[in-house]
C-alpha cells in the first residue's frame, strides 16, 4: 500500500483541521514514504512531488469509521470489502472497522484473515476487523478474543444483536481485559422491542407501525454501564440514539469508567417524523430506529459536549429486494459512508456543532475509542488525509454511489459538502471526478 521512500505528495494551501494537534489554519501537508513529514504554512515542494491543490478546501486526517458492514464474506450481493472500501474513501474515510455479522460471522481467525486479505488486495481504505463477543453471535459462549486480537481484530461486538444475558456480558467485559480489547455493544432489550418497526410515539401510532420504545435501548445501556463499573472492562456503546443513553454515558464517564460511545449521522439529522413524511420509505428503517426530535437534540448535545466520542456511520448496505417490500418486512439499515460528511456538516451550519469538534469526532475521537493508529496528522503518523470541499453542493444519486447497494434516505436530496480527495498511506486513492 505504501509508496516508495522517496515519493512525495503535498496537499497544498488548504485549511488544515487536525484536532489531535490543535491545528486549524491554512497549511500544507507533506507526505513522504507514506507518512506525514511536515505540516506547515510554507513548505518546500520537491520538483517531482505530486501536488493536490487544496485551496478553499478543508484538509483533515482521513476519517475513521468504527461501524461499517462490509457484508463479506456471505452477502457479497450487498457489498464487498472492496466496494465498501471504495465507498469509504469516496466519503473521506481512510480507516474503517468491519463489523463481524457476516456469514459466517467473524468469530474465528480465518474470517478475520479473509477480510484483511481482501482489504489488502483492494488497496483503498485501511480495514480493521472487529471480532464477535460470542461464538456465532449466539449470545451463549465467549469467542476466542486472544486469537482474534492476534489475527488483527481491534474490538469485539455482536452488533446487530444485543448480548441478552447479563451474566455473559459481565464475563465478556472481564475476559476482554486480558487482551485490552474493547467490548462494543448493540443495545436493545428484545422483550421491549417485540415486533417493533420504528420508534414508539405519536408518529408510530399514526402510521399504525409497532413501536420500539427509547427505553429498550436505555435499560441496556444502564445495565452495561453498571457492568463496566463492576468489571473495569472497556465498554463502547454503538449507535447510541436516545436521550436516556446520552444521560447514562455522561454519568458513567463522570464516574471515570472506561466508556466510549458513537452516534450515527442519521440519528443526528433525522427524526421518526421523517418516516411519516417519506410515506413509509424503507430507506428510513434501521435499528436503532430514527428517534423523536427530543432524542435527536440530546444526541446532538452529547456529541458537542464530548459525551459521544465518535460519529460512526453504521453503513449497512442492503439489496433492492431486501428493501422494496412492506415496511414491516424490510431489512434494517442504510448506507452511510458517502453521505456522512455533508449530513453532519449541516449541524455546523445550523450552529449546533463546532467545525473542529466535528472533525475530531470523525478522526481522533473514533481512533482513540479502539486505540487505532489513525486520525492524526502528527509528524510520523500514517499519511492518511481527507480533502473536503465544505461548500460543494451535490445531489445524491443512488446509482452513482460507489457502494454496491442503493439504500440511502438522502436519495434525490441536495447536500452541501463533499470529499474531493482521499489519501491513504501517502497514495491518492480517490479523487472526485470532474471537479477542478
Amino acid at each position, binding site marked *: 500500500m505504501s509508496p516508495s521512500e522517496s515519493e512525495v505528495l503535498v496537499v497544498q494551501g488548504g485549511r488544515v483541521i487536525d484536532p489531535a494537534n490543535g491545528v486549524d489554519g491554512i497549511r500544507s501537508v507533506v507526505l513522504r514514504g507514506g507518512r506525514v513529514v511536515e505540516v506547515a504554512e510554507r513548505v518546500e515542494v520537491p520538483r517531482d512531488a505530486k501536488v493536490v491543490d487544496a485551496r478553499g478546501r478543508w484538509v483533515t486526517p482521513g476519517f475513521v469509521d468504527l461501524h461499517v458492514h462490509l457484508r463479506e464474506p456471505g452477502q457479497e450481493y450487498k457489498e464487498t470489502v472492496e466496494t465498501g472500501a471504495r465507498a469509504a474513501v469516496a466519503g473521506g474515510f481512510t480507516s474503517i472497522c468491519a463489523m463481524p455479522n457476516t456469514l459466517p460471522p467473524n468469530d474465528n481467525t480465518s474470517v478475520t484473515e479473509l477480510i484483511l486479505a481482501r482489504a489488502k488486495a483492494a488497496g483503498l481504505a485501511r480495514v480493521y476487523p472487529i471480532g464477535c463477543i460470542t461464538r456465532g453471535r449466539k449470545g451463549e459462549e465467549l469467542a476466542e478474543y486472544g486469537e482474534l486480537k492476534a489475527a488483527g481484530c481491534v474490538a469485539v461486538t455482536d452488533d446487530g444483536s444485543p448480548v441478552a444475558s447479563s451474566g455473559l456480558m459481565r464475563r465478556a467485559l472481564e475476559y476482554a481485559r486480558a487482551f485490552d480489547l474493547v467490548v462494543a455493544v448493540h443495545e436493545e432489550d428484545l422483550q421491549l422491542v417485540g415486533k417493533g418497526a420504528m420508534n414508539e410515539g405519536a408518529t408510530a401510532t399514526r402510521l399504525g407501525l409497532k413501536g420500539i420504545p427509547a427505553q429498550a435501548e436505555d435499560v441496556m445501556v444502564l445495565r452495561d454501564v453498571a457492568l463496566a463499573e463492576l468489571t473495569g472492562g472497556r465498554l463502547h456503546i454503538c449507535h447510541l440514539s436516545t436521550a436516556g443513553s446520552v444521560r447514562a454515558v455522561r454519568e458513567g464517564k463522570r464516574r471515570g469508567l472506561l466508556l466510549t460511545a458513537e452516534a450515527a449521522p442519521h440519528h443526528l439529522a433525522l427524526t421518526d417524523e421523517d418516516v411519516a413524511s417519506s410515506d413509509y420509505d424503507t430507506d428510513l428503517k434501521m435499528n436503532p430506529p430514527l428517534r423523536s426530535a427530543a432524542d435527536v437534540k440530546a444526541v446532538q448535545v452529547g456529541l458537542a459536549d464530548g459525551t459521544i466520542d465518535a460519529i460512526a456511520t453504521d453503513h449497512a448496505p442492503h439489496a433492492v429486494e431486501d428493501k422494496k*417490500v412492506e415496511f414491516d418486512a424490510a431489512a434494517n439499515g442504510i448506507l452511510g459512508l458517502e453521505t456522512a460528511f455533508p449530513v453532519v456538516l449541516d449541524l455546523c451550519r445550523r450552529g449546533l456543532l463546532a467545525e473542529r469538534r466535528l472533525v475530531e469526532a470523525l478522526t481522533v475521537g473514533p481512533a482513540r475509542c479502539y486505540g487505532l493508529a489513525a486520525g492524526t496528522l502528527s509528524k510520523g503518523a500514517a499519511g492518511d488525509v481527507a480533502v473536503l470541499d465544505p461548500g460543494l453542493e451535490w445531489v445524491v444519486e443512488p446509482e452513482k454511489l460507489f457502494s454496491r447497494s442503493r439504500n440511502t434516505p438522502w436519495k434525490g436530496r441536495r447536500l452541501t459538502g463533499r470529499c474531493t480527495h482521499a489519501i491513504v498511506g501517502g497514495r491518492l486513492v480517490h479523487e472526485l471526478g470532474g471537479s477542478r
Partner: protein
Amino acid sequence: MIGRHRHLIGLEGLSREEILEVLDLAVSMKEVLSRPVKKVPSLRGKSVVNLFFETSTRTRSSFEIAAKVLSADALNWTASGSSVTKGETLLDTAKNLEAMRPDVLVVRHSASGAPNFLARHVGCAVVSAGDGAHEHPSQGLLDCFTLREKLGGLENRTVAIVGDISHSRVARSDLHSLPKLGARVRLCGPPTMIPQGVEALGATVHYDLRSAVEGADAVVMLRIQHERIGDPLIPNTREYSKFWGLNARKAAEWLKPSAVILHPGPINRGVELSSDVADGPHSVILDQVQNGVAVRMAILYLLAGGAPEGARPGKA
C-alpha cells in the same frame, strides 16, 4: 374531489369537503340499493380486483357487491401469508395483477403502509381495505355515513371509541374523519391498549368506560382481536368484559337514550358487547353493513373514473 388523490389509502390526507363528497354521493348510491333492480351501468367496462392478504368476509363481499351494482367486473384474489412466507413479493403479486389491467386494486394487508407502497408502484387506483393498524378508510367513511344518518349530523357530537385502540385501524380512520366533521372523539380501553401519543390525533383518553360513554351520542365498540395480540395486554376476556364490555345494564344506566352503538364486526359476543346490546335498540350495526356497500360504491365510482356527471346513479 377525492379523485384528485387517485388512490384512497387513508382518511388522514382527506379534507372535510372531500369526505363530504363521498358521503353525499353515498346517499344516492344507497337509493340504488333500495331499488327492485339493483344495477346501474356507471362502471360498465371497468374492472375491480380485490387483493386480500388477510381473511375478510364482510369487507371483501361489500366491495364486490359495490362493484357489481355499478356494473364493474370484480375479481377476488385471496393470498394467504405475508410476502416473506409466500415466496412471491407483494410487489410482484400486485404487478402481475396490474398487468391484467384493472381500474381499481382494492388491497387488504397485515402490514401498515402496504397500500402506500403499492400506490407508488402500480398504475391503477389503489383503495385500502385495511392495512395493519394504520387505516381502514372505507370503514371510517361508513361510520361517518351511519352517524350522519342516525344523528342528523356530526357537528358538536361526541363519539366514544372503546377497545383495543393500539391495534385498530378503524379507530385511526375514525379519528382522521369524525373531528373533520365537527365531532369530538373519546378513546377508551385498558392502558395497555391505548397507543403512545394518540392524543396528538385530537382525542381524549379514558381508562374508565363510564366516563367515556356517559353523555356520548355514539359509541363505537371495537372487536378484541385475539389474533393480533402477541403481548399480554389484558389478563383475560372475562376481566376485559367486566370493565370495558357493554351490557344491557350499563347501557341503560350510562348511555343517553338516543345514543347509537356501532361495531365494525365481527362481534365477539359476550366480550366487548353482550348479545342484548348487540341486538338491542341502540345498535345500528347492521345499518353499518348496508351503508358500507353504498359508501364503497361511491369510492369506486369516484376513483374508477365513472361515467360523466349526468349518468350519476342518483340522477338516472
